[in-house]
């Protein structure tokens, strides 16, 4: 540390102060963008996989309804950025019971119809990596 004999208070802003303030402001903005936006985990697209092959891809931004046929039939609904299986003729109805989903990395599955709706895109890292339950 330097010995400064002139101890008068310095109130003027120097270039470093402004730079520091600017950097702190930028840091705050970056933090807000990184942690503050609720949209981070939302998927952009739903992929329709059946028997291990990709059958189609649909943006969640466009509302639509369609039927995936196979051994059974699943009616898929996309609405307000979310997707669900509205109706199905499979036994068990696990796919219908699993409800609405919008998070990247999540899936809705109908085992009897070998169908997986996979939510992708929107974030490099989804918020949730796996699900137990």
């Amino acid at each position: 540390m330097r010995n400064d004999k002139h101890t008068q208070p310095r109130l003027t802003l120097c270039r470093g102060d402004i730079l520091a303030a600017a950097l702190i402001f930028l840091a705050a903005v970056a933090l807000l963008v990184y942690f503050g936006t609720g949209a981070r985990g939302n998927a952009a697209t739903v992929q329709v996989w059946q028997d291990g092959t990709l059958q189609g891809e649909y943006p969640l931004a466009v509302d639509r309804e369609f039927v995936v046929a196979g051994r059974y039939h699943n009616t898929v609904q996309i609405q307000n950025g979310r997707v669900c299986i509205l109706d199905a003729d499979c036994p068990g109805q696990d796919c219908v019971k699993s409800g609405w989903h919008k998070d990247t990395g999540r899936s809705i599955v109908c085992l009897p119809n070998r169908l997986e709706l996979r939510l992708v895109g929107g974030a490099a890292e989804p918020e949730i990596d796996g699900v137990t339950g």
Partner: protein
Amino acid sequence: MKRLFPLFLALVLLCGCTAPPAKTEEAASRRYEATFLTLFDTVTTIVGYAETEADFSATAQALHDELLEYHQLYDIYNEYEGMNNLKTVNDHAGQAPVPVDRKIIDLLLFSKELYARTGGKVNIAMGSVLSLWHDARELGIEFPDQAALPDRDALEQAAAHTGIDSIQIDEENGTVFFTDPEVRLDVGAIAKGYAVQQVCGSAPAGLLISVGGNVCATGPKPESGQPWVVGIQSPAAPEEYLHTIYVENFSVVTSGDYQRYFTVDGVAYHHIIDPDTLYPADYWRSVTILCPDSGLADALSTALFTLPRQEGQALLDAFGAQAMWVQPDGSILYSPGFREYIRT
């Protein structure tokens, strides 16, 4: 120097919060995910990082193939050509010893040990009882208007043939024999977790493997070193999480009354049968177990589901595991160490 300090501090702060996303974007490895609907009658998901999709697919396929072998060996409903599996054992071990793969011997030994250590709450010799429930459930799901409970007398007769000691394992000759010809194996409470553990044990580091909610991490995410985040599904609302937890190198397994069930006269009957009552256990809506061994986690989730809290906690203490119990009213109880893993 003094003047530069805030500048330096600001730079550190700025780097600190922008670095993680930048790192994942610039990293050579990308995140990939593979799903299989062919194993253990459930959904298998493998998440990992690799430089190319082909690299990841090769890893995922190798794990699938290993799991498929366990799936076929431990299947009690279907036979496969050129293989003695648990269906072969169930069909023939009452007459004569059946030669089996070492993977079956090891599973049966592990299951017998857990029978002893859980006071009989995990009993693979309960197949005769469980098949009555299984048939009633399948019928009730397929034809809801014909749904009916299994006959009580039939359940009690079946329960007379659930002795674990009647399963005779000859390690030297690699055979299984039933001293009670009426006993049947059902490994549903343990086999999936055991298989996941065997496969995860030799899997590459940095993967998250989930077989029907039986989740096993083989170390943290490779690029960032961050733990994986696993959501614990709400029994009341499948699209919601009760908690998200950090998982790095252990397993998470949940048993719940909402996973497999059928409805008779408006009442839901789920698949976790208490060996002492022969009916679905009603202490909890779900029990989630955290512990290093996936097979143990699987067995403990079933055992704790059929036990009141204190007895469950005693088991957790004996095995060094943690649990979260969801009560019928939706409120949640935790073992003392569980909270350390909670993220949200």
